[in-house]
């Protein structure tokens, strides 16, 4: 555990944002994903709150990794993460009450986000504090990206808007983000309900696989010339 093989920061960032994306590759955190991605704004709020918790939890776990025995690491991580989320919840409620009214719903959901424990276990418990901080940031931003994309697609088809109520979350300066794409749109309720989340996720997973396949396919290899070419 204490042996620190240097990890490439570029690799870490790339993994977080794309190759090992929490939602699109690891298929983790499905519960908060389905629950909050009814709009792009909600996805953004959940993503940013999760990113903040993920960075701090990764740093803490990496800092204590040498002292924690393998046998009791999971309960220790769970206690640390749960405490952290509760602290964030309390402080926001006390000192940033307006923000808490908007984000409060998401913060409670972060506790059940297995991606946080997953990163503690898979990365932070084996790597330096610095690398873990970068990993937390990259994974969090990758998660945010995924939530915003799923949220925007569901919102567009479901209610015909983009980033509705963004100014509530980010402040009045961001009201330009709010776009009513289709006026007088009656909406497709199913997209707002959980089945819509699964549908959109399914199509986005297909899209990601297709992109990955295209990128990794060697240029010289064409199915016509080589029948075995995958």
């Amino acid at each position: 555990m204490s042996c620190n093989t240097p990890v490439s920061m570029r690799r870490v960032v790339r993994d977080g944002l794309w190759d090992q994306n929490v939602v699109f590759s690891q298929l983790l955190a499905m519960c908060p994903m389905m629950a909050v991605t009814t709009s792009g704004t909600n996805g953004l709020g959940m993503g940013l709150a999760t990113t903040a918790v993920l960075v701090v939890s990764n740093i803490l776990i990496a800092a204590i990794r040498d002292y924690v025995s393998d046998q009791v690491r999971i309960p220790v991580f769970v206690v640390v993460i749960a405490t952290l989320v509760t602290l964030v919840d309390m402080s926001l409620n006390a000192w940033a009450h307006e923000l808490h009214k908007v984000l409060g719903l998401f913060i409670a959901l972060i506790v059940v986000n297995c991606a946080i424990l997953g990163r503690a276990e898979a990365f932070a418990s084996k790597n330096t504090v610095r690398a873990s901080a970068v990993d937390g940031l990259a994974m969090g931003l990758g998660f945010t990206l995924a939530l915003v994309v799923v949220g925007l697609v569901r919102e567009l088809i479901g209610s015909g808007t983009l980033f509705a109520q963004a100014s509530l979350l980010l402040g009045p300066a961001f009201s330009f983000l709010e776009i009513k794409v289709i006026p007088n749109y009656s909406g497709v309720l199913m997209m707002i309900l959980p089945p819509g989340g699964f549908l959109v996720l399914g199509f986005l997973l297909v899209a990601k696989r297709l992109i990955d396949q295209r990128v990794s396919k060697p240029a010289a290899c064409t199915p016509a010339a080589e029948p075995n070419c995958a």
Partner: protein
Amino acid sequence: MELAVLRDRISYQGALLAGFTLLTGAALMTANHLTLPAIERAATEDMKASLVQVLPQGMADNELLKDSVVIKNDKGVPVTVYRGRKAGAFSAAVFQHSARGYAGDIVVLIGLNAEGVVQGVRVLKHAETPGLGDKIEVAKADWIHSFEGKALAAARWAVKKDGGEFDQFAGATITPRAVVKAVKEGLEFYAAHRTEIAAAQGEQS
């Protein structure tokens, strides 16, 4: 002793776990102690903001939050009633009531004048279907305003589908039905306890 050896000892592991629980517990206690006053202040502010929404300006000149009385309803559940006064005379009452909606309880805050006419209603808490049932929120639709000016005896308290006078939503009848029921029951509660509410000496200030 080497850390690596120590880590495999069961006593070390037990102590470690206990230590972390103690530390995090202490952190939570400290945080709770530090944030509690601010959180309570914020909750009071929120309550004040919703009280203003269900009672139009000029209905009361006192601080409602400081003039409350707790009265048991027919089911034995205590209800906190905030009393509005104008030059000392009882002029308005604000209280919460809830009814079962499509997904869990819908909590409404009801503001009445002394005669029991609805001044305003707001939904404080609900878990109805987004896009269908959430039209009961004032931010999403004007529907909740349809209660204003209605009194218990002078209105047909049901949604139109049930022969009443309140609109239901396309695709959602259970939700508005529940809100209508909550307001109606609230009015009945007020009618039954009006004298108690007006007379009881609360923590008046």
